């Protein structure tokens, strides 16, 4: 039978619909991962982050008796900052770039829902971030090993929370990416990150400002914006203070709920959107 002319229906198997749906999310995630790892910008960022971690060795050398502290401080900061840059700059383009370049036109008519597509994009970027964070973590531990510092598992707690923060930030970036341009989505996501970092200060603003409107606004922002400080235990870990497992569990639940809500919102907006 002719190759093109063959009209036999494709065998799709008899697996349950749920498993099939998860597989499709996985395919999109894998393709998103492939997209990001083939992007030279990502390599430049990771290389820069590793250089920054490496440069902490030099700074540590001039900080008498503080070498290890400086290396840990700068190392964790590098993982956080460069992870944030990757999360925002790649996250904002995940959907809007596909619309601008019209690659969506050939994907969405395939048997995949918009929700599956969006979730696949989200998990694909989270996987990319996981690999990057792991690479940077290995870089940090190698440096500490060269400094003859014993393995410090507490650093992993800080890095785990940094990763949770990044997954939340990706969800924020994707939400904006579903209804606005890449540039605006980047600006909005950046604003949410900064405002979310200082959200506890927003709550306290009412005690120092006499206006009635501003405190109301900041209170709303406090409750709506994710509190990114919940994921910041860098100072405690570097100082050797204990970070209880309950704090990690609470932060995980907090991130899961926020990410869930943001993804539900993103999927809803994206499912209603006309692709012009």
């Amino acid at each position, binding site marked *: 039978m*002719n*190759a093109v002319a063959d009209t036999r229906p494709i*065998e799709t198997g008899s697996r349950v619909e749920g498993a*099939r749906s998860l597989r499709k999310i996985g395919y999109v995630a894998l393709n998103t991962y492939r997209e990001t790892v083939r992007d030279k910008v990502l390599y430049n960022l990771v290389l820069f982050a590793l250089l920054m971690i490496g440069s902490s060795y030099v700074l540590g050398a001039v900080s008498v008796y503080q070498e290890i502290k400086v290396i840990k401080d700068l190392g964790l900061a590098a993982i956080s900052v460069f992870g944030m840059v990757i999360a925002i700059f790649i996250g904002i383009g995940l959907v809007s770039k596909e619309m601008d370049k*019209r690659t969506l*036109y*050939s994907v969405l008519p395939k*048997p995949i829902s918009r929700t599956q597509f969006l979730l696949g994009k989200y998990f694909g970027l989270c996987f990319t971030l996981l690999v990057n964070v792991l690479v940077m973590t290995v870089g940090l531990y190698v440096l500490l090993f060269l400094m003859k510092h014993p393995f410090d598992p507490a650093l992993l707690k800080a890095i785990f929370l940094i990763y949770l923060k990044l997954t939340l930030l990706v969800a924020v970036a994707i939400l904006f990416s579903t209804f606005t341009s890449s540039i605006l989505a980047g600006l909005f996501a950046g604003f949410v990150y900064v405002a979310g970092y200082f959200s506890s200060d927003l709550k306290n603003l009412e005690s120092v400002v006499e206006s009635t409107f501003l405190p109301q606004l900041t209170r709303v922002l406090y409750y709506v914006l994710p509190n990114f400080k919940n994921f910041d235990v860098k100072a405690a870990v570097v100082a050797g203070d204990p970070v209880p497992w309950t704090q990690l569990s609470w932060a995980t639940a907090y991130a899961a709920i926020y990410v869930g809500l943001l993804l539900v919102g993103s999927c809803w907006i994206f499912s*209603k959107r006309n*692709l012009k």
Partner: protein
Amino acid sequence: MRALETRGLTKDYPTGSLLQKMKRALHPLDLEVEEGETFGLIGPNGAGKTTTLKLLLGLVFPTGGEARIMGRPLGDPEVKQQIGYLPEQPYFYDYLTGRELLNYFGQLFGLSRQERDVRSRELLEKTGMTDAADVPLRKYSKGMTQRLGIAQALVNRPRLVFLDEPMSGLDPVGRREISHLIRELHDSGTTVFFCSHILSDVEQLCDRVAILNRGKLIEAGRLTDIIDVSLHAVEVVVEGLSPELEKRIAASFREIRPHGPRSHISFPDIPSFEKALPVLIEGGAHLVSVNPVKETLEDHFFREVNAGGRE
């Protein structure tokens, strides 16, 4: 069962950002496409062809009306499993190779690894892309991207395939190959729905056509029904036509246009030509060609669109 049916399918787009004024991109559209036929949707730029395709493919949502594909409503997952689509000026993930793209789309259709491998190989060969199969798409020319676009539209062996400007960006060889491929699809029973500006392709390939203009359906039907198939003229090319000979057939022809040593003579009908033919031969003229002139789809299209445009 009809492959495609629309009833009052309508699309309005907001034009003003604040006032939300609506512009009608597609007026209520009633279309029927039978299974196995090759259907052409034609119209000038902005006629609503791509909007119609986007509505059928779920890329935009209708303001009103409904559509059914293979008897099922739009958005039904079973529908997507049975259709293929080539977008106009397609753009694919340029970090993938041609083979990777087909493999990815095969995954979305639920094909097994073996099926994907076999199908990719078949389609790459069929579209003349085997040599470029492992080259990243960012290095593809426009024609190569178009060929790959056609391959990806067929990866699931669709029962209904939508092709938006399938010949765009192709050289004459490519156009001929894709025409051949569309005929093969037709012969195998696949329903082909395509939009094109190249009316000669539509005329050659389609069983039925619909003409859209300014978002409105002007006409739909079989080519033989909508085009006037009667003879309009007989175009004859001769060599060695002397002024005396021209005078002798003056009563028969409509127009003579000299082209170097040759003359193009237009006769209004066959009897006029038959009357003039012996005079031409006896007078020493050599007959080069004889062509009956009928209305083409292009003639019909321009007449209909111009009539609509002047309303």
